[in-house]
């Protein structure tokens, strides 16, 4: 596996500094090629160099990265080097996913139009299975990795919280319900379900579900398993 000259790769750690996919995009700095880089293997379309930078810290395995990159290129049908929303919309199965649009939106934080490969991996890194051993060894001072329980939860929370105010309002809850519940349910029923859902989780009585309340309502659930894709080892 011929490698480009060795460099260290500080970039992935900057992903980690942003706790969620919604955070600022990391400042790129000078492109470098790290030991985790896959450049020579993935040369269907030459990409801008910085797209190669993948950090060993993120612990997405090499094989997975390579596959993800293949996938990335396959999705990027015209070889632009980035993905647009349209590219993701062309995934057939996603089109009949009731949350399809929201999922796609979650790949494009802050209204960006382009999704480059690191960004792609960063979003997907939320779905990496939690490795217990790794979790135990983690330095508590370090920021949580993207696949921690909290970050997984936050990712899900963002699907509800459209206006990004950190709360799921009744209205947002209702919208999410409308997406996910079949047409047989009448609007009144939906409304009362939305009311009830908010009520149930709302502890401080502000009529909305904050992230902490959201996390609390799910404390019994095995998020680590539910929000992990086993192909992303």
């Amino acid at each position, binding site marked *: 596996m011929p490698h480009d000259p060795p460099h260290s790769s500080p970039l992935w750690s900057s992903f980690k500094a942003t706790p969620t996919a919604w955070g600022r995009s990391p400042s790129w700095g000078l492109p470098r090629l790290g030991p985790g880089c896959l450049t020579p293997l993935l040369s269907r379309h030459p990409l801008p160099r910085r797209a190669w930078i993948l950090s060993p810290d993120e612990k997405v395995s090499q094989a997975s990265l390579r596959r*993800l990159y*293949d*996938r990335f290129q396959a999705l990027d*049908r*015209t070889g632009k080097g980035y993905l647009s*929303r*349209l590219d*993701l*919309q*062309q995934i*057939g*199965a*996603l*089109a*009949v*996913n*009731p*949350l399809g*649009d*929201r*999922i796609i939106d979650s*790949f494009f934080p802050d*209204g*960006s*139009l382009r999704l480059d490969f690191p960004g792609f991996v960063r979003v*997907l890194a939320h*779905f990496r299975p939690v490795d217990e051993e790794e979790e135990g060894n983690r330095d508590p001072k370090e920021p949580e990795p993207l696949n921690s329980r909290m970050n997984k939860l936050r990712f*899900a929370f963002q*699907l*509800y919280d*459209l*206006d990004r105010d950190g709360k799921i309002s*009744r209205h947002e809850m209702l919208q999410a*319900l409308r997406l*996910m*519940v079949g*047409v047989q*349910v*009448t*609007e*009144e029923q939906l*409304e*009362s*379900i939305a*009311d*009830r*859902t908010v009520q*149930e*989780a709302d502890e401080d009585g502000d009529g909305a579900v904050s992230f902490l309340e*959201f996390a609390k*309502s799910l404390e019994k*659930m*095995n*998020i680590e*398993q*539910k929000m*992990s*894709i086993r*192909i*992303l080892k």
Partner: protein
Amino acid sequence: MGVRGLVPFCPWNWCLLLATLQCCGASSESNRSTDSSAQSELNVRFAAASSQPAEAISVFTLDYDYVQIPYEVTLWILLASLAKIGFHLNRRLPRLMPESCLLILVGALVGAVIFGTDHKSPPVMDSSIYFLYLLPPIVLESGYFMPTRPFFENLGSILWWAGLGALLNAFGIGLSLHLVCQVPAFGLGDVNLLQNLLFGSLMSAVDPVAVLAVFEEARVNEQLHMMIFGEALLNDGISVVLYNILIAFTKMHKFEGIEPVDILAGCARFIIVGCGGVFFGVIFGFISAFITRFTQNISAIEPLIVFMFSYVSYLVAETLYLSGILAITACAVTMKKYVEENVSQTSYTTIKYFMKMLSSVSETLIFIFMGVSTIGKNHEWNWAFICFTLVFCQIWRAISVFVLFYVSNQFRTFPFSVKDQCVIFYSGVRGAGSFSLAFLLPLSLFPRKKLFVTATLVVIYFTVFIQGITVGPLVRYLDVRKTNKKESINEELHARLMDHLKAGVEDVCGQWSHYQVRDKFKKFDHKYLRKILIRKNLPKSSLVSLYKKLEMKQAIEMVESGVLSSTAFSTSHQAQRTKETKRLSPEDVESMRDILTRNMYQVRQRTLSYNKYNLQPQTSEKQAKEILIRRRNTFRESMKKGHSLPWGKPAGTKNIRYLSFPYSSPLPAGRDMKVAEFTDHDGSDSELPPITFSTHSPKESIQERRWAPEVIPMRSLHRAATPPHFGYRRNASREEHLGRGGRAILRPKPLFHAVDEEFESEEESEEEAPAFGSLLSSELRPGGDCNLSHSPLLQRK
């Protein structure tokens, strides 16, 4: 338990049985009188004819012999069908046991009747009938309904497991039984090695599809599903090939010794027979795909082409002593993809149903015959042989599963867990295949055929009944992730959301394995195969018909559920707001949870649900339509509002993604023309609808914005979809170079599949995705976040 299902139909069944009985009596009478020992159809008929006294014309005569065979076969099938109806009327029964249990029970019942009346069953089961008529439909069905994409993604593991597994099982069982036969105390000294090997080969034909239904309910993962499906598909072929070779050896052995050269030749033959079969299958698959390219004017013969070519591939392969089973499987797999795009929708449905029907008839007949031969005198019970067979079947299956998967796991990125392996081990249910092969053993070569048949029957009964019934609980037990019932509404909702999210992200990640091979094939397919095999200008755009369907459905749904409540919405909305603080009673909460559980959309499954005996209406398909309708509605809604993007995000995110004109024609003139071709009445199916957003008629679009009809024709979509001041042109130029995505729209058929058959035909979904996606995006994107808006219920204001 089986009897329970039959209860509602008892009177019917008994009537039929009585009819059969009487006829049986009559026929046995006449049989005796004609003294016909020969049982071939022709002879019977001839004998029957000659037995008629040639005197005067009698007013009433009974010529049962003339109709005996078809009559009885028909009655059997009817009986089995009625039993199936009863079986499925009972809700709990299908969950408890696989359907093959029922068929075997019905067979045993018929067998008991036949045995009780001393009647000889008609000779529907002999070697040529089985191999020429009964087997092909069964194989064709499983080949045709195989989910192509996951199959090829796991091809390596499947071949490794199904191929080597069958061999290992056959030789393992054969050799270890041979060892048992050496023990003088068991009285099996005359069973030689070849016979044992032959027995092993027929025992290795497992039929695990019967347990797939159980797995579906328990939601086993896709890999596992595919392994079992693949095994069912290939196993028969391999064991039949092995069986035939061994039969040939046995015949040879009768006259001369077998030399090592012969064994080598046998191995070579095994490979040639298999590969040759696949080769012919692929050739005929392509031919039939090519021919369906020209059938647009006589669509009635489309199903015929499909069936006849599959059958021809089988027959040709058999003529050349190649594996017909593998040929017909390969033929079905090859042609399916292209044929489905060529044939009309009705033909496609016909093909599917007819295929299911034929295979279930075949299988019913085999099972009934199994029942018939279960109850009778032709058994030889040898405790040692039978018990050891049973034990060795399990042991060797366990060995082959754990060894082969251990090896293949080394090469797999996502290995099979021990749990998966246990499930595969336990799904080793023997079925119709093993029985037929045992039943067809030539008596001249196998003096102890009865013993083999008995042992096979015991194994089948054991695996079908005991394993088949307990596999469900086992899977559920192994699957520790049981949802507990005591969830709060929040948990319920969020859990489902996460499931959808996970499924969506999985789709984004794609299925990955063998990517490069697949990519290469896809390119080749696009470059050559599709051009040759698929009709160029498909006449009736199924896209249009899909849209009509969607519109109809939407209309119906709105009438049924939505409109009333949505008219009351504005007031109730206010009312709800004020009631917000009211606490709900536990019953209310309970009912809410109920509503949620029942009505939340299911997470998509990649492998379609497969039932060997039935084509189920796919709920997922319905759901997909519903979701599409909604997304469309929300799109319209947002168009109607003229881009008042309700839940603010920076406008940049909403940047509208229009797909350019599908023909990628940058000329405005061309665009005008195309849009003009859209006539208002819905009947204009003939035109392939370009989903486009024409910028040329802002006035018109303003008029259209008055939301008059509930069901707007497609055309209005085009008009209404005019974005007055969003950068269409800029985007168009940007998107136009996407070429491929745009061009994909030119193929309406896959588009339709993607929607309608998304979960049925699954194959090709990657291919279809672009067209489908771009349709959606072209429609939906202007809303940017169309999901933000409304359900159909809120459509009308």
